[in-house]
């Protein structure tokens, strides 16, 4: 167990170096990447925020509260980019569907360690996270939110719960790629995109059944809206426990089904595998 942690930290170091080299290989790429990150940050926040300004708030949240929610959304989205964007680790159905899992299974490392390390992009993948932190701090100051340790701890808990709900769901749907490699190759990106599209909206004004649907069944509301409500002290009692529990539940189910899918993969392999590692 301790050896795995050691390996994970060592690999994070290796991937960090690789990422830094990639980002600084050329001034043009570097500037374009930073500019692209800045623009992504701006565009993901600006649309809904401008609406909140025009309408004097959205879904029961004031303009500043909406800004806080959007900042939090970018933190979660940024954490996804930071840990799971590289090498299609978040879009795992692509690697399963293309038969590329074979490359991981022959490595002398547990699959979990590989999955937790291969997506790590601390330099090229941290732009959205940094932007999210900046927007969240600005909104929190404007709202006079307490920057106490327990509150910051709660913020971290909410952010990582939302992240693992997102990743867990992507892995859950990706299990189908073990059984239908071609048909499900892109299934994780469909789920990720759908969650991302709805995740940045305040759902406060929606009817109760739709809110429940978007929190429990298709948990787009767990990416930003519900955590923001909890952090703003606007959610019902006990909601703070819901998010980590939901994250555990989704990741647990995904892990069990993933193991089952791996057994199937072990028996049948992938007919789409090519020695060059690309899909057929």
């Amino acid at each position, binding site marked *: 167990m301790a050896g795995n942690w050691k390996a994970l930290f060592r690999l994070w170091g290796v991937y960090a170096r690789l990422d830094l080299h990639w980002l600084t290989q050329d001034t043009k*790429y570097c500037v*374009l990447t930073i500019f692209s990150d800045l623009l992504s940050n701006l565009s993901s926040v600006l649309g809904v925020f401008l609406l909140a300004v025009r309408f004097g708030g959205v879904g029961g949240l004031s303009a500043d509260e909406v800004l806080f929610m959007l900042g939090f959304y970018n933190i979660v989205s940024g954490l996804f980019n930071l840990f799971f964007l590289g090498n299609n680790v978040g879009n795992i159905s692509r690697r399963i569907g293309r038969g590329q899992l074979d490359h991981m299974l022959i490595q002398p490392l547990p699959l979990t360690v590989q999955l937790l390390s291969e997506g790590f992009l601390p330099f090229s993948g941290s732009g959205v996270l940094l932007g999210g932190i900046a927007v969240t701090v600005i909104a929190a100051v404007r709202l006079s939110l307490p920057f106490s340790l327990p509150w910051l701890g709660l913020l971290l808990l909410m952010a990582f719960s939302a992240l693992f709900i997102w990743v867990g769901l992507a892995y859950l749907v990706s299990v189908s790629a073990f059984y239908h490699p071609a048909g499900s190759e892109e299934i994780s990106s*469909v789920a990720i995109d759908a969650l991302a599209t709805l995740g940045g909206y305040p759902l406060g004004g929606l009817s109760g059944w739709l809110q429940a649907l978007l929190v429990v069944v298709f948990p787009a509301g767990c990416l930003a809206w519900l955590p923001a409500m909890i952090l703003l002290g606007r959610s019902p009692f006990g909601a703070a426990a819901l998010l980590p529990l939901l994250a555990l539940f989704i990741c647990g189910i995904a892990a069990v089904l993933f193991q089952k899918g791996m057994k199937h993969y072990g028996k049948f392999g992938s007919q789409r595998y090519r020695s060059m590692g690309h899909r057929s």
Partner: protein
Amino acid sequence: MKKYIATMRMSLKESGYFGAMNVVGTYLMKWLRLLALLMIWKVLFAVGADTQGMTLEQMLTYTLLSAALSPLLDVRTPASSWLHEGTMLSLYQRPMSVFGQLAASTAGSWGMHLLLFTLPCLLLAPLLGARLAVNPWGVLSLALAVSQGFCVDFLFAGLIIRANNMSWMVESLRRALTALFTGALIPFAVLPFGIGKVLEWMPLGSLAGAPLAIATGLSTPQALLPVQLLWNALLWPVAVWWFRRCQERMVSYGG
């Protein structure tokens, strides 16, 4: 013409390559997103905020049309992915124009969306609170937007070539620009501080904003069609020149 129709047919068949599960998942998500957006607009309008004269019915129609016509309002040829995968080079080995092949392939890929999403959207529009009326000016504006969309896509394809196939980065740049500046998600009419008035005149603003504003009666054809014509006339020569210049630097490898 026959060869381009054959390309369209091939592209249509290819769009179902990932199988029924992918198709069902994709369109289910599109419906979920559309329904949630319609609900959000209803809630916003129920607050009774100043919407600069825009009615709820107009907003719902705008949102519905934006989703239903999304591939036409933000034209994406396969150029970006084909540059990355190396398929692009094979286009030069065929006795057809590269632009023509990309355009035919793109038009073919719209088939499934039009059948599985656009058609049901239009049929269910009255139930969703939208009101659709045949508007010839809106159709003309849509045609101009599609033409300009191809042009913008070729400009981005050139950028990908110049950036040595960093298609993911250019894609994220493009997504950020189109999310806000095309008017596909939020109508320019409800943006504060007069931002919408400025964006309406921008090249990206003519893509989704113009046809949707004309179709929903938010703006007049007299105001927007000349802008669309102008951008088409200005951007097409630039796109052709830029792509020709960039294609000499094209390098492709497997993705």
